[in-house]
C-alpha cells in the first residue's frame, strides 16, 4: 500500500508543481495518472522515489516512511520501487544484460558490480525476465542497437529485477507507435497481475489509460481533479482535467477499443511466449 499525504513541491524557480496531493494506492492496483503537460505527473512519481525532493508532505510505502530517509536507507527504499521511463532511459552504451542487471545495483556491493560479477541468481533472473519479454537472445547487444519497443521491454526488465513492491511508470509509450504502445501497456499490466504489483502510470494517452488501468486519477495544475474508474471519464470530466475541447471522438473510440482489447487479449506477446524457452519462465510469477 502506497500512501501519499499532503505532497507539495515547489521548484526553486518558484513554480508550485504539486499543491498537497493525497493519494492511496492499494497493493496490486494499476492506476493511471493523466493530465495535461505541466500538471505535475512526473513530479508526483519522482517525489515518491525521491529523484525529486518533495517540499512538504509524506510518502509511505507499506508503513515505511520514505520522505525522511537519507543515504543508505533511501537507496534501500528505492530498490523496492521499480521505475520505467519515458524514452526508455537505458544506458545506451551498455549491453542489454548490463542494463537489466543494473536493476540489482541496490543489492550488490560496488566491486561486484564494477567487475560485473553479479550473483548467479541475479543472472538467472535476468535471463528469465528477458525471455519473458522475448529478448533473451539480445542479451549481449548494446542497448542502442534495439528498436524503441525492444528498449522499453528491457526497461521493464530492469525495473522488475529489482523485485519491487511498486512500479513507477513515467510516460512509457511517449515515443512508441500506437501498436507498440499497446503491447507495452499490456505487458506492464500482465506483469503487474502476475506479481501482484501496484503501479502508477503517467500517461498522456487517455485511451490507453482507459484500456489498461483499473483506476484513473486526473491531475490539473498540481491538484487531483478526478479519481475514479475509467468508465467515469465523461466529456465533463475530461474538460475539467484538460480544458474545453470536443471529447466525443475520444470517448467513443475508447469504448470500441476496450471491446477489441477484451476479445484479443494479446498478440505479439503471445507469439513470444510460444518460443521454445517457455520452461525457463517457470517460477517467474
Amino acid at each position, binding site marked *: 500500500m502506497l500512501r501519499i499525504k499532503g505532497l507539495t513541491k515547489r521548484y526553486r524557480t518558484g513554480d508550485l508543481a504539486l499543491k498537497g496531493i493525497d493519494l492511496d494506492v492499494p497493493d496490486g492496483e494499476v492506476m493511471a495518472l493523466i493530465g495535461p503537460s505541466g500538471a505535475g505527473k512526473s513530479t508526483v512519481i519522482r517525489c515518491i*522515489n525521491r*529523484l525529486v525532493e518533495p517540499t512538504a508532505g509524506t510518502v509511505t510505502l507499506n508503513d515505511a516512511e520514505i520522505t525522511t530517509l537519507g543515504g543508505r536507507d533511501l*537507496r*534501500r*527504499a*528505492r*530498490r523496492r*520501487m521499480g*521505475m520505467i*521511463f*519515458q*524514452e526508455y*532511459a*537505458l*544506458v*545506451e*552504451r*551498455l549491453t542489454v544484460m*548490463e542494463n537489466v542487471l*543494473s*536493476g*540489482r*545495483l*541496490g*543489492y550488490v556491493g*560496488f566491486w561486484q*558490480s*564494477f567487475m560485473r560479477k553479479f550473483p548467479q541468481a541475479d543472472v538467472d533472473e535476468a535471463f528469465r525476465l528477458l525471455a519473458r519479454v522475448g529478448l533473451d537472445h539480445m542479451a549481449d547487444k548494446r542497448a542502442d542497437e534495439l528498436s524503441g519497443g525492444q528498449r522499453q521491454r528491457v*526497461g521493464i526488465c*530492469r525495473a522488475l529485477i*529489482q523485485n519491487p513492491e511498486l512500479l*513507477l511508470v513515467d510516460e512509457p509509450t511517449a515515443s512508441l507507435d500506437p501498436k507498440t504502445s499497446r503491447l507495452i501497456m499490456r505487458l506492464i499490466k500482465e506483469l503487474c497481475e502476475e506479481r501482484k504489483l501496484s503501479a502508477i502510470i503517467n500517461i498522456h494517452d487517455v485511451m490507453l489509460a482507459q484500456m489498461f488501468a483499473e483506476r484513473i486519477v486526473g491531475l490539473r495544475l498540481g491538484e487531483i481533479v478526478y479519481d475514479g474508474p475509467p468508465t467515469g471519464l465523461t466529456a465533463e470530466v475530461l474538460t475539467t482535467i484538460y480544458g474545453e475541447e470536443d471529447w466525443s471522438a475520444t470517448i467513443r473510440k475508447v469504448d470500441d477499443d476496450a471491446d477489441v482489447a477484451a476479445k484479443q487479449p494479446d498478440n505479439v506477446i503471445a507469439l513470444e511466449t510460444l518460443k521454445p524457452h517457455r520452461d525457463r519462465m517457470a517460477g517467474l510469477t
Partner: protein
Amino acid sequence: MSDTAITARNWTRPPLIKRAWLRRALLAGAIVYLALALGTTEVNWTRVWEGLPRGARFFAAFFPPDFVSRKNDIVDGILESLWMTVVSTAIGILISVPVGIGAAKNIAPAPVYYFCRGILAVSRSFQEIILAIFFVKLFGFGPFAGVVTLSFATIGFYGKLLAEDIEDMDFSQAEAVRATGAGWLQWINYGVQPQVMPRMIGLGLYRFDINFRESAVIGIVGAGGIGATLDTAFERYEFSSAAAILLVIIGIVMVLEYSSGYLRRWVQ
C-alpha cells in the same frame, strides 16, 4: 483577397547586435585598430633580405641528417621522452578523473564544483614551458621536472574536457540508474562512465600525442627527454644531429597520430 497577400512586407534577418550605432562603432573600431597595428609594425626589409641566405645556410647545415654520431644520445633521449609521456599521461589522467567529476556542474555540489574548477583554472592558465621552468627551478634539471610539468598540464586539459562531457551527458540515463537504488560509485560506473568513455579514451590518446610533442619542447628548458638532446645538439652546432633528432620526432608524432586515429575509430 486579404490585405496580407497584396502588401509586400519587408523582411531582413535580425542583426546580431541590435543597436545600429553600437554595431557600426564596433566595426569601425576594429578596422581602425587593425590599420594602425599594421601601420606601426616595423619591418626592416634589408634585415629580412640579409636573413634569407642565412636561413638557407642554416637549412643546408641540416643536410645530410646525421643519425649515427650521436646515436646513443638520440636513442636515450627518445626513450626518456616516451617514458615521460607514458608516466605523465597516466598520472595526469588518474588525477584528472576525480577532479573532472567534481568540476561537472550537473553532478557535483557547489563547493566541490568551485574547488575543482579552481584546480582546472590554475592548471590551464600556465603554458607548459612556464610550468617547466618553474618545476625545473623546484626539482632541478632532469626528466622528473618534465613528468611533473606534463602531469600538471594534463590535469587541466583532461579534467576540463571530462567535466564538459559529463555536463553534456543524457541525464535521464543516469537518473534511471539512480532510481534502482545504486550507490554513488555504482551510479558513476553504470550511469555516467559509459556515456563519456569513448570520447575520454580518444582524448587520452590525443593527450598522449600532445605530451610527447611537449616533452620535446620542455627539454629545452632543462626538463629532460629528447628536447634536452636537441638543445645540446644546437649548442654544439651539430646541426646534422639536430636534423636527425627533428626527423625522429616528426616520425614518432606521425606514428602516434596515425595509431591514435585508428584506435579512436575502433573505440567508437
